[in-house]
């Protein structure tokens, strides 16, 4: 018995029943395409979020004023101290294994140049911020190093802010007004896009001391602490919490380790991808049942053919193989087609939203392909066995 000839015979049967073939191939390809597209979106979301966090820099502790905890209320009726530049100075001075500490103050103010004005987020920080949040410059330089209590009138612009205020002109060295204050542009950041919470392209950065004075505040919005190496993270986090408790005499700040956030986001989104894959597999299973139905109909439609083949000396095993090959080919072709459609859909999606790194994970591609063949084999068995069991005498008898 030549299996290749049986396969060729099965292909003939598939081509001979075009509508039936097209429908079941379509069913499987939709299922596979769904698996590919949905897992690609899930994986894209995971990469996007972890990428955002990783852009913050590695081994970062984030200090947030106020106690963000799921358990219990604030001690002592919710009295919180400001998170101040004094605290930052203490962190710099007293914590071991700390590379950089970057304070962050926030406000919104009108930024003017010539006749143009825009209301923009005004971020106050120090030169350390550049390393901590991995800022790259398009032109000019970032805030200069120096005493953070000095303040200063330098401003660094996001690309979009620069474009809107200066058009195609060169902003470097120009004077802008922020509120009533005068600043000199010393740099423009490279385009970066929206990060967690804020859009680096659409803001301005000034020295932290100036920012606090401008908005008449003493409290910082965040403090970023860069730790020397992942191994030191736990100890540094502990030490940082101890220091703040000692200074404020109460636990009134929250310290978040960047890594653990990335990890939990990554695992949540990984689980989401799996869930999407699961949902998509349901459509694959539906397609499988579709194939089974199509094959069962095909078996009963082709009763005479089966009876004839048996009369011509085809063995039960050969009949079984013919019908299984047909089912596997239906789903296999559907699988390949679905793979193509899915990948094309993902490519089109990325074309439209280039910022979203939608990529179908390799495991999804492999599993989907294997599954499409498996679906054919599994759901083809029942019809094939039906075909074999058929009594050739009855099958040939015309009623």
């Amino acid at each position, binding site marked *: *018995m*030549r299996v290749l*000839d*049986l396969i*060729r*015979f099965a292909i*003939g*049967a598939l*081509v*001979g*029943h075009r509508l039936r073939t097209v429908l079941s191939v379509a069913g499987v390809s939709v299922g596979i395409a769904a698996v590919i597209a949905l897992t690609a979106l899930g994986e894209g979301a995971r990469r996007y979020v972890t990428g955002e966090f990783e852009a913050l820099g590695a081994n970062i502790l984030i200090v947030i004023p106020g106690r963000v905890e799921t358990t219990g209320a604030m001690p002592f009726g919710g009295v919180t101290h400001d998170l101040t530049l004094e605290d930052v100075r203490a962190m710099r001075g007293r914590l071991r294994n700390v590379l950089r500490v970057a304070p962050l103050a926030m406000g919104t103010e009108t930024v003017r140049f010539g006749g143009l004005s825009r209301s923009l987020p005004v971020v106050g920080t120090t030169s350390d911020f550049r390393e901590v949040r991995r800022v790259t410059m398009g032109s000019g330089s970032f805030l200069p190093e120096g005493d953070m209590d000095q303040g200063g009138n330098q401003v660094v612009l996001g690309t979009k802010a620069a474009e809107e205020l200066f058009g195609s002109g060169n902003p470097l060295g120009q004077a802008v007004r922020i509120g009533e204050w005068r600043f000199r542009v010393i740099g423009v950041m490279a385009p970066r896009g929206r990060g967690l919470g804020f859009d680096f392209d659409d803001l301005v950065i000034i020295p932290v001391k100036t920012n606090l004075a401008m908005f008449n505040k003493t409290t910082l919005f965040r403090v970023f602490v860069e730790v020397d190496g992942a191994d030191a993270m736990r100890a540094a986090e502990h030490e940082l919490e101890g220091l703040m408790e000692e200074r404020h005499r109460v636990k009134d700040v929250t310290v978040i380790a960047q890594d653990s956030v990335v990890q939990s986001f990554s695992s949540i989104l990984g689980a989401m991808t799996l869930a999407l894959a699961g949902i998509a597999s349901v459509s694959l299973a539906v397609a499988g049942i579709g194939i089974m139905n199509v094959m069962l109909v095909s078996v009963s439609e082709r009763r*005479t*053919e089966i009876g*004839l*083949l*048996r*009369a*011509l*000396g*085809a*063995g*039960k*095993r*050969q009949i079984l193989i013919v019908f299984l090959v047909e089912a596997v080919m239906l789903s296999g072709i559907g699988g390949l087609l679905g793979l193509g459609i899915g990948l094309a859909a993902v490519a089109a999606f990325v074309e439209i939203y280039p910022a979203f790194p939608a990529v179908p994970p390799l495991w999804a591609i492999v599993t989907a392909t294997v599954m499409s063949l498996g679906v054919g084999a599994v759901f083809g068995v029942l019809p094939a066995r039906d075909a074999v069991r058929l009594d*050739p*005498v009855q099958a*040939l*008898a*015309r009623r």
Partner: protein
Amino acid sequence: MIELINLCRTYRMGSEDVHALNEVTLQIDQGEHIAVVGPSGSGKSTLLNILGCLDRPTSGSYRFSGREVADIGEVELSLLRQRWIGFVFQFFHLLPRLDAVGNVEVPMIFSGVGREERRQRAQRALESVGLKHRFKHRPEELSGGERQRVAIARSVVMSPRLLLADEPTGNLDRHSAEEIMELIERMNAEGLTLIVVTHDPTVAKRAGRIIRLEDGRVAEGGADVRPQI
């Protein structure tokens, strides 16, 4: 070549037994041309199916070339049908998706004949039934007589010893029926054992021997009726 002894085939219909074949005893020699006749429901098709090893007797013995068929396993039985027995049906049973050559190739596909040899043998078989110019025609593009000739080419392409035909001319006009009978008689003349079930007395008359079935039994003296020509 064929020996049936007290062969019965019984169908169970509810609580009743239908004796499609009842105590049939027969002997058929290599190269004979036999017509099986009898009223509708007398068991002719049942007999042919058992002779073709598509159906098994309920009781009694069927010997094919000296071997008890009941002792032959499923796989070997398929091989027996493949190599030794050819079938021709009233309704042709051609596969509509295949052309004439493709249809004749089918039995060879399942017996593992190579592609090139298959095509050559199929074409030769079609030539021998006078369809040299119909190789690429599908069944729907052929007349009834031509279809039956394709079916005959298919049935003999494996060079069987026994050709079983169940009303092969039942769906054909007189002229085509004549042609078909001449064709299979020519093969009979070359040594093929021929068993033809028919309702048509003129077809039956051409046989070397007529077996008349009545109610599942071989009619009195039926096995020995010779046509008077």
